[in-house]
């Protein structure tokens, strides 16, 4: 059970948090102007990234605030957390590993 660093509360047990899916998927400005396909993309389609992924998290049993995080979906490790009004950090393919190369 890992620790997740809430940007407001600091590191807390994983069980205090709820997952909120892919981050940076804003509600469309004018849904009425979207085609059915465009609207369906917003409602139903999300990335399924292997590696670093920008996600929404909610500190459900703590401060109850939403925040964003970059997490590696292959290792589960959180690489950074940031507030909703912070810009999205660059997400590169390079996954940070828990391991160092020395034996």
């Amino acid at each position, binding site marked *: 059970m890992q620790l997740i660093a809430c940007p407001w509360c600091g590191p807390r047990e994983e069980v205090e948090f709820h997952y909120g899916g892919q981050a940076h998927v804003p*509600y469309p400005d004018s849904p009425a102007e*979207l085609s*059915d396909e465009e609207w369906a993309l917003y409602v139903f389609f999300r990335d399924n990234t292997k590696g670093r992924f920008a996600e929404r998290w909610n500190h*459900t049993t703590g401060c109850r605030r939403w925040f964003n995080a970059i997490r590696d979906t292959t290792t589960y490790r959180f690489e950074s957390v940031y507030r909703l009004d912070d810009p999205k950090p660059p997400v590169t393919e390079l996954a940070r590993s828990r391991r160092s190369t020395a034996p």
Partner: protein
Amino acid sequence: MSPPFRTASGGRIDRATAVEFIFDGQTLTGHPGDTLASALLAHGRHQVATSITLGRSRGIAAAWAEDPGGLVQVEEPFPEPMLLATTVELFDGLVAHGLPGQGRLADVPDSARYDAVHHHVDVLVVGAGPAGLAAALTAARAGARVALVDEQSEAGGSLLSGTERLDDAPALEWVAAAVAELAGSPEVLHLQRTTAFGSYDDGFVLALERRTDHLGAAAPRHVSRQRVWRIRARSVVVATGAHERPVVFADNDRPGTMLAGAARTFLHRYGVLPGRAAVVFTTNDSAYDTALDLSRAGVHVQAVVDARPEGSPRRREECEAAGIRLLPGAVVTGTQGVERVTHALVAPFADGAVGAGSAIACDLLLVSGGWNPAVHLYSQARGRLRYDEVLGAFLPGERLDGLTVAGSAAGVLDLAGCLADGRRGARAALTALGITPAADDRLPAAPESAVPTAPLVLWRVPDTSGADGSTSFVDLQRDATVADIARAIGAGLRSIEHVKRYTTIGTAHDQGKTSGVLTSGITAELLGIPVQDTGTTTFRPPYTPVAFAALAGRDRGRLFDPERVTALHEWHVAAGAVFEDVGQWKRPRYYPRPGEDMAAAVLRECAAARTGVGILDGSTLGKIDVQGPDAAVLLDRLYTNMMSSLKVGSVRYGVMCGVDGMVIDDGTVLRLAEDRFLVLTTTGGAAKVLDWMEEWVQTEWPDLRVHCTSVTEQWVTLPVVGPRSRDVVGAVFPGVDVSAEAFPFMTWRDTSLEGVPVRLARISFSGELAYEVYVNPWYAVAVWQRLLEAGRPHGITPYGTETMHVLRAEKGYPIIGQDTDGTVTPHDLGMAWAVSKKKPDFIGKRSFARPANADPLRKQLVGLLPVDRETVLPEGSQVVEFLADGELPPPPVPMLGHVTSSYRSAELARPFALALVRGGRERIGETVHVPVDGTLVPAEVTGSVLVDPEGARRDG
């Protein structure tokens, strides 16, 4: 009188005290400090059980948790299955018997307490052997906050099993001094009888402390029997030692066959001779210590059979001096005996080939095939292993952040090396944490140990018995043999994970502590590939079995999940209410009178509400206070209907959808002020709706000046329902004009009762004239009783959730989550009227314009009236239709939908149901069929509103 195999002196047992225990019906004695296994061995008893599938005799084969042989069931003081004789500490009154691989769960409740403790440390050291003690001392001396946990009854680890010396004194004197030093360090927690069984992310380690198991019936009742320690460590030092590995040969499961190191433990720690005449079979130097120690203690060591061509030149002189015959370049190829080994079959061995052998008489056959570092906790933390050719073992192969392996768990097998490696591990951990190690962290001097002769890696002895490996046991608990591995490979399996599952090796109680690496080795050999390519199976928690009772801890019974009760709960209990669980709430379901069952009580309660007056405790209704200048904007965006146009003093019903347009909750909204609303949600949806509001406010509309907070528990809600409700409410609250003209439907009024603020609302969940009374919970009982008092002349009847459901269903009011399932739109519910056409957007609106939403064959909420006027259609029943010829279509019979709510109606004098039915509204008037207990019940499709469809009753 001492048992026959007890030594005259020595060991860590309390010889002055005798304890009596019963094993397999036989009364025996032992001493405090014994395990069940050592006490049995003291009586000369090796065989403990028979094996799970083959029924072969099995005995004690090791001295601790790696033992695959000695399974027992404890009967007294509390029944517990699948324990190991080697890990059950002896106490007076213990009753146990051997188990053929399967135990029996207790059929009486466990009255013991179990609990859990959270603990946070800088450095957690697992294992209190030489490396662990050195690590703990190093960390403690640096001033770090330290936890030291060890699974044995006392600290010392391997030192408890030998005669090692440190600083020219018995090593256990240093152990005692180290324990005392740790006890004097205020920041150190030192726990014995505590097994770290799981290692997880970020230094999270679970450990099980056995607090009173060893006390038997004398265990104090107020102390928890076992405790789970949830330790969060900034750094973990794993010093868990190594397990000795056997060599596989024919009939290697015969009782009397034991790991060499275990015999040394039984001798030195427990004062027990595991036999009189021993043969020692080894591939490495460590077993020589056992041979020499046993010989000194009076055991006749018949021979040391060493598979290495030269044996151990270094130990030859010692053996010769002790009169022990050395047989280098030889192996044990099999055993003889029935319930106990009587002979070891020994044969020359060169270049993998076995020569002609002979039998050596013995009652004890000791085996050592080398040592497997106990890397479990490291591997659980997803550390990769590497195969070490010299040791023939898998070692930690990389450095993990926050987790260091030290001592023999890291492949360091000599005492001086373990001490130094423990200190190194702790220093590395401290440095990583920015803690400076103490200038003086001296460790005791261990005698120089000569470099041992390199071990021979030998997984198995070729089977010359003619059994073709079918009696060469790899996993004794699973009765799995070399022949089984060969069969798995013959079936085409290559991955060690597949071989494990095919053969079941490593899936038993011991999870492959002795068999796992052997399987890798033998599999590699049979496949002709290097062992490192085979690898090991995955190590998963728990390291040793943990009882569910311990994991549950105090989260049992009433403490499993919080129970929420309303302010009127005691009144309901006194009134004889039958309760039902609604989420975490306890709600009265109905109030039976003497002789009434639920059906009768509900019919009576329904009739009262429809013809007189009823009263409900509706306090569990979710309530959210929404405040701020933009409160109306928020609600306009979240509800399908317009809330901003609601007047202060008025109430509006609203439906809430997800972005997919499906209904997620409904309820009424009271406008308290221009900038303040009270939102009522379903009981089950309260938390979800508040979270929903928060999510949108925080993530999409942070510009809105609005705040939402739950006030569910700040208000009790008491609906007074029925044509006589006006009389009752008017009598209790004379300050309010309750007439239909002055207090119309869907409005609210504030009043007070003797200075206590009260809010009344004309909201109806039954279709009848009704007033909801809101008051602070402190006054709930008083107001409830005033209402009952005023209602007595009218026969006021308290009713529960069942009647509430019948009344609302008769009116076609859906319960979100019962009549809907996440695929239902407001239009499907017949609530197009609740969907605003004026608002440019709200959550869900765009989805309503999708073509699928306009499909006339969508499932729609309709009523069903069973034609026989008798059958209450079971909720969840499928709805089907006949073909034109009056027959069912051939299977699979298409499903039109399902029954969502179904009750007996007092008002209609017949059962009725609500159902989601394909194109339901177009079918009104048609007959469909519902299979009930094998017969097809015809039912007429109706509109969803069955009682008072004109709404004539709501004003009384």
